[in-house]
Structures are given as structure tokens and as C-alpha cells.
């Protein structure tokens, strides 16, 4: 049988797949990009996830703490409530032992306990929380063993302030009286003259005692031991000398036991001196009772607000610095790594010289030269940028050396890509993971340096942000033994932040570079 396969007639042909569209079958699985892949690996690292969460909380704190706090770091400084522990009145009144502004005082003698009691009796707010604990101990006194007792007492340090002598103008005094009548809160307390406190009965004359605004009762000696009446109550020693009165007391409020004879102000060359119940006076000044969630610092500022403001600055500053360093370092390192040879050598030398200058010297010099011209923060920023980008540049350079010899780069070059395109479209994206990671690890470094420098007082940010975490810690140093909280909260914040950032950065590094897990890249 013979078939002519060359000359097949046209009619015999027909289209096999005319109406069917041909294409690859769609992938059944979901495809994952580089970032999604890294994120998946990151999620497996539990400590880093926790760290990321903590960072989130700390950042939220820095955003919202200054908003929540009724105080302003720059304006609200109380000269009396300094270095005091956390106190919020409503919570304190519950008596559950938190936010009660308390400190436990050991080895107090009876006189000190009595003075605290007297404050409680006069102001109606007892500084003593619970009952003083008695501690017995023996002591050698003039060759003999004597048993002594001392007290361990939990003291509310806000109520402990009691009354204060304050010199004010007559107008201010009248304003307070009006405020008293309006609110029903007794701010002004009767004046006490020193000569009324201790009257020596044998001599028949008064003996001056040490002036103490909280001794309002008659005493039996110059030390301040109270003279008690039959029922064990204090006997008031308020002044009734009308000739010394500064401004007549017209308020309808009077302390219990006042028959109208007590004077509430004392004339003092053009102004008046008064005794105020400081807790109430504070309400008069601020319109609210003290509410210090973290307590106060050495300048009488709210620590809650101060830490929030300081942290805000630290975080923003660190992010700005690392963004700038990233940009400069990446460009510098890219040029170095891409061109290599002499360009690399010269640029490396420049970087070497810059990195040789200790950053503390750089910061100081910039402060001395630039701070007055461009402000503290810009000069601080310059100082960080001047040497900060070097690490990033070295990293980028290394990555460029790694990738520039690869075939795809060569291919792109053959196709006529420009240098710029090769650098930033082909090589740079490959090293992005490493660079992002090291950027996250740079942030804690910047925060740490910034805190150190403000701690040392080389940088003073009080004009711009009011405070900084380093400054808070530095001023709390002096009162560390009596008010450890003022040191504790800032150091806790900064430690948590740095630890979390480092953990987070490590997790990110492992996620982006699974091959180099745990190895310094």
C-alpha cells in the first residue's frame, strides 16, 4: 500500500486544539516569599516573639504614659514631694499595701513614733501604716548592759510631710481662704510660735526649741517629747497672739477645738508666714490629690511621665540614628564593595581613621562646638552618625564582595545594566536581610550609649524633652538608699528594652539567615 505523505490534500487536515487554551497547571500549594518565609521561621523562635511583644508594650508605654499622666515633666516640679514612692490615694485607701507611698523605717525611737502620731492627730491622715513593730536589743551603756527598744514602722511618706511653714503674699493667703470655703478642705492650720512649745516651769520662761513645723503641741523638754494631758492626748501650743497676726482669718473653716482665738498667719515683712497642711495645699495648687504611679524623682517630678518622655526620646532618636546610619553605610559600603581596588582601600582608610576616634570624644567635641549653634539634639545626632555608619558600611561591603561575582550579576552586566542598577537592583536586595537584622541590633546600642551619655551629664536634654532615662538614674543616685524606686523603674525600663531588642534582633537574624544560625554574620 502506498501513501503519498508529501501531498496530503488540504481538506484532510483539521485543528486538534483549536478551542482549548493551553497553559501550565496552577500550583496547588501556596507560594511563599522571602519575607513570609522569614516570618514563619521567626514565629518558631519563642523567646524572640516574647521579646517582640515586650518591645511593643514598652513602645506603647512611651507613647501613652505621658498622655495618661496628669503631670508635665517640664512644668510640674514639686519641691516637697521629692523621691517619694508610688502613691495613688484611692488605691492606698484600700489598704492592700500597694501604691501607698510607704517606706519601712527601722530603728526608730519613741520620740520619732510620737511625732508621727502627732502628725496623724493634727492632719487627720496618719502616716503610720499598721502598727509599729517593737524590736528589743541590748546595748552597752556606761559599762552596763541595757535593754532597749526600737521600732520598725511603715510610714506613708506623703502624709509624713504633715504641715509646712510657707511664706506667701497676703493676696495668696486670701485666695487660699476663699478656696477653703469653696471646697471645704482645710489648708491653713493655726500658726505655732516657737516660744509656746516648751515652757520651763521652774524658770518660768520659754526655751527656744528646734523649729519644726510639725510640733504643734506642748513639750516637756527641748528634744520634743510631748506633754500629755490626763487622757494621753497632746496639748495644743497654737499661737493666740493677735498682735502678731498677719492677715485676719475670715474663712469659715476652723480646725476642731478652735474657739476663734488661734491665729492662722504670722506677719513677716510685707508678706505672711502660714502653716499649711501640705497634702491639702498640694490639692489647692494642683487641683487633685497626688497621683504618682511610679513615685517621684529628686526634682519632684512624676516618674511615670518622666520615664515615658525619656523613653520616647530614646526610641525616636535610636530609630532616626539607625535609619541615617543605614542609608549612609549602605551607600558607602556598596561603592566600596562594588568597585573594590584603590577606591576600596582609600575609603577603608577614611573609615578606619573615623572609627579610631572614641565616640565619647566625638560627642564631647560636637557638644562643645555645635550645641550652641544647632542645638543639643542635632549635634548629638551628628556625633552618632559620624562614626555610627562604619559598621553598616563594613557589613554591606562584605555582602557586596560575596555577591558581585555571581553569575546573575555577570548576566545583568552583559545585558548592559548600569553600575547603579547592578548595585541597587541586583546585589543590594540580596543583602537586605543581613542589613535589616543588624539595623535592629544597632538600636539597642544607640539607646545604651545615649543613656550612658545622659547619665554622665555630657548631654543635657532637659531643655528639649525635659528629661532622659540616663538623667533620671543619675539624679536618683544620691537618694538611692531611701528611695530605691527612683533608680529601679528607669533601670528596669532600660534593661528590659535593651534585652528585648537584643533577643528580637537575634531572632530576626536567625530567621533571615537560616544557614548562619547562631553565627555572627
Amino acid at each position: 500500500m502506498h501513501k503519498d505523505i508529501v501531498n496530503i490534500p488540504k481538506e484532510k487536515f483539521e485543528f486538534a486544539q483549536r478551542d482549548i487554551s493551553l497553559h501550565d497547571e496552577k500550583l496547588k500549594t501556596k507560594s511563599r516569599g522571602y519575607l513570609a518565609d522569614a516570618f514563619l521561621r521567626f514565629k518558631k523562635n519563642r523567646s524572640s516573639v516574647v521579646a517582640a511583644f515586650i518591645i511593643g508594650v514598652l513602645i506603647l508605654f512611651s507613647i501613652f504614659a505621658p498622655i495618661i499622666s496628669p503631670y508635665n515633666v517640664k512644668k510640674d516640679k514639686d519641691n516637697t514631694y521629692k523621691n517619694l514612692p508610688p502613691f495613688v490615694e484611692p488605691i492606698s485607701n484600700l489598704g492592700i499595701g500597694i501604691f501607698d507611698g510607704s517606706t519601712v523605717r527601722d530603728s526608730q525611737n519613741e520620740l520619732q513614733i510620737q511625732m508621727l502620731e502627732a502628725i496623724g492627730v493634727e492632719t487627720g491622715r496618719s502616716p503610720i501604716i499598721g502598727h509599729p513593730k517593737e524590736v528589743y536589743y541590748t546595748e552597752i551603756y556606761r559599762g552596763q548592759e541595757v535593754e532597749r527598744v526600737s521600732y520598725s514602722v511603715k510610714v506613708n511618706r506623703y502624709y509624713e510631710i504633715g504641715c509646712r511653714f510657707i511664706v506667701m503674699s497676703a493676696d495668696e493667703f486670701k485666695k487660699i481662704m476663699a478656696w477653703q470655703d469653696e471646697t471645704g478642705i482645710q489648708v491653713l492650720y493655726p500658726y505655732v510660735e516657737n516660744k509656746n512649745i516648751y515652757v520651763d516651769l521652774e524658770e518660768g520662761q520659754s526655751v527656744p526649741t528646734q523649729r519644726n513645723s510639725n510640733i504643734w503641741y506642748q513639750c516637756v523638754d527641748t528634744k520634743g517629747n510631748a506633754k500629755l494631758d490626763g487622757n494621753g492626748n497632746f496639748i495644743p501650743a497654737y499661737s493666740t497672739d493677735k498682735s502678731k497676726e498677719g492677715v485676719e482669718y475670715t474663712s469659715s473653716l476652723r480646725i476642731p477645738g478652735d474657739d476663734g482665738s488661734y491665729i492662722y498667719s504670722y506677719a513677716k515683712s510685707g508678706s505672711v508666714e502660714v502653716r499649711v497642711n501640705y497634702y491639702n495645699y498640694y490639692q489647692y495648687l494642683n487641683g487633685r490629690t497626688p497621683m504618682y504611679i511610679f513615685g517621684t524623682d529628686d526634682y519632684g517630678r512624676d516618674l511615670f511621665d518622666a520615664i515615658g518622655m525619656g523613653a520616647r526620646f530614646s526610641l525616636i532618636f535610636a530609630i532616626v540614628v539607625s535609619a541615617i546610619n543605614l542609608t549612609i553605610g549602605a551607600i558607602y559600603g556598596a561603592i566600596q564593595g562594588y568597585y573594590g581596588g584603590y577606591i576600596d582601600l582609600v575609603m577603608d582608610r577614611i573609615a578606619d581613621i573615623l572609627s579610631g576616634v572614641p565616640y565619647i570624644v566625638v560627642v564631647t567635641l560636637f557638644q562643645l562646638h555645635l550645641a550652641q549653634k544647632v542645638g543639643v539634639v542635632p549635634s548629638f545626632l551628628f556625633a552618632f552618625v559620624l562614626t555610627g555608619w562604619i559598621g553598616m558600611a563594613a557589613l554591606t561591603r562584605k555582602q557586596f564582595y560575596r555577591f558581585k561575582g555571581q553569575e546573575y550579576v555577570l548576566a545583568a552586566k552583559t545585558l548592559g545594566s548600569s553600575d547603579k542598577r547592578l548595585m541597587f537592583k541586583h546585589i543590594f536586595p540580596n543583602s537586605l536581610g543581613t542589613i535589616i537584622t543588624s539595623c535592629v541590633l544597632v538600636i539597642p546600642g544607640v539607646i545604651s550609649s545615649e543613656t550612658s551619655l545622659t547619665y554622665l551629664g555630657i548631654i543635657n536634654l532637659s531643655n528639649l524633652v525635659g528629661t532622659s532615662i540616663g538623667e533620671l538614674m543619675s539624679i536618683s543616685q544620691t537618694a538611692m538608699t531611701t528611695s530605691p524606686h527612683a533608680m529601679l523603674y528607669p533601670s528596669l525600663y532600660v534593661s528590659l528594652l535593651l534585652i528585648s531588642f537584643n533577643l528580637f534582633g537575634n531572632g530576626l537574624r536567625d530567621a533571615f539567615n537560616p544557614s548562619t544560625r547562631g553565627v555572627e554574620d
Partner: protein
Amino acid sequence: MIKYVLQRVVLMLMTLLIITCICFVLIRMLPPAILPAGDPHTPAIEARREAMGYNKPYMVQFGIFLKNVFTKWDWGVSDKLYFGQDVAKIFAEKLPATMLVNLYSIIFSIPVGIALGIWAALKKNKMTDHVISTVTMLVISVPSFVYAFLIQYFLSYKLDIFPFLMEGGGNYFKWSTFVSMIPAVLSLSFGTIAGFTRTTRAELTEVLTSEFMLLARTKGLTKAQATVRHALKNCMVVVLPSIFGSFVGILGGSLIIERVFAVPGVGQLYLNSINGQDYPMFILLTVFYTSISLFAAIVVDISYGFIDPRIRMGSRK
């Protein structure tokens, strides 16, 4: 190798010269401290300033400065803090305190850090390793003044073991002075210990998995023998230079600790010279800190050059 070392040293000296020059000019550009009128030292210092070329161009001033330093070891006189006294002499008085605190800290940190590192490496991926590595990470992250606070509060105040501040007085080898140094030494040590632990652990785990360790075991050595004779030796090649590097490093980084514990050392002097605007002192200390950081870098560089000739400078990919 000698050529390599020489090359590095010459480069370092050049870098130092350039940095000193820049800093010198920047500092001299600041208005000099105003001298108190009527003080007996004032005319003398004014004469000295004239001799040091205060009214001449900056490069001439720098030349005079270098000439004085190299020929007479004359760094100028303090014009504010230690009025009229020789800056170099005061610096020499302050140096021992800083050196001693750092030396003690290093002596304490090395054995502890290396021992912890070895322990962690030997128990790799077990509970011990995880605990040590985590604690190391935490300790490295926390800034040193937080330790200073914790140590002062608990050891000095609550337990009352150590004094709050370091004793002055010049005699650094008295027992009571030594005790008063301990808080400062401890605060400095935390970070250093953690650093050593991390380096040792990283190095040792790498060495332990290498093939010659397997060979040593097949030769019949016990695990302990193999670790001590082969692994540790190899790992120390990296750890030992880092000891020197870190000594130099913390010498520069102890500013805060010196302030907190009132160590009468160079760090205090530096802070005071900034706050008191004592520029001759400041120039000397700048040169000091710069040389320290350069020295640390060169020590690490050279030691790596010894260990791994491939990383030597000049051999670029």
C-alpha cells in the same frame, strides 16, 4: 609576619596623628579659659600660652604642641581644674586607680568567664548550656550602671559589706582601699565575664565538632584528654588575644563606673575636664582614649593575623 605587624603599627601611628591633629584643632578653636585676674599664676600661664603659639595659625600651634610633647614630654599646664599644674603629672597620678580597678576586674573575669564558656560548650544544647547562654545574653544587654546600682543597693546598703565609694588617699594597696574597690570591680566584671563566656563557648563548640577531635578520640584519648589537649588549646588561640583586647577596651569604658563609685581615676578626670572646660587636660585625655581604642583594634588585628594568615590586610578577595 614582621612586615605585617610593622605595617599595622605604622598605619596606627598615622591614624593617631591625624585624629590628634583634628581634635587638637577643634579644641583650640574653642575660646581658651579666662584666667582669673590678679592670680599669681596668671601671668605665667599667659606667657606659656604665648610660647605655645595661641595667637598663631592652628597648624603652627599643632607643630609646637608636637615638638613640646616629643622633646620635653610637655603636655601643657592645666588652666582651670588644677590651676597651673603640669597636666601630664596629674594624669600620671590618676592612672593607677583606673589601671588597678580594670586589672582586678580582668583577673576576676577571665577564669570565671572561660570556665563558664567551657562548661556551656561541653554541655551543648542541654539545660546547662541554655541557662548559661541566656544569662550571658541578658548580662551583655544590660548597661553597666544598672549593675552599679544593684551592687550599691544590695551589697553596700542592704548587706553593708562594702563601702559605697572607693577610698581616695593615694595608697592603693591598703586592705581597706582594696575592699572599697570591690564594688567597682564587680560592676565592671559582669559584662566582661559574659563576653568571655560567649567567645569561649562559640569557639569551643566549633573546635569540638572538627575532625581532629574525632581523630583524637579514635586514637584512644578519653573525652577529657581530647578536650584539654586538643580542643582547649585551639580555642585559647582566639580567646587569649581577646583578653588583651578587652582589658584595653574596658579601660576606655569604665567612665560610668568611675563616676558612680568615685574612683579617683582617668574617667573622672575626663568628665571634670569637660565640665570644667580645662582644654589642655582634655587634649591629653583625648589622645589617651584615642590611642587606647586604636591599640585595642591593632591588638585584635595582629592576633588574628597570627591565627589566620588569610585575614591579613592586603590579601583581598
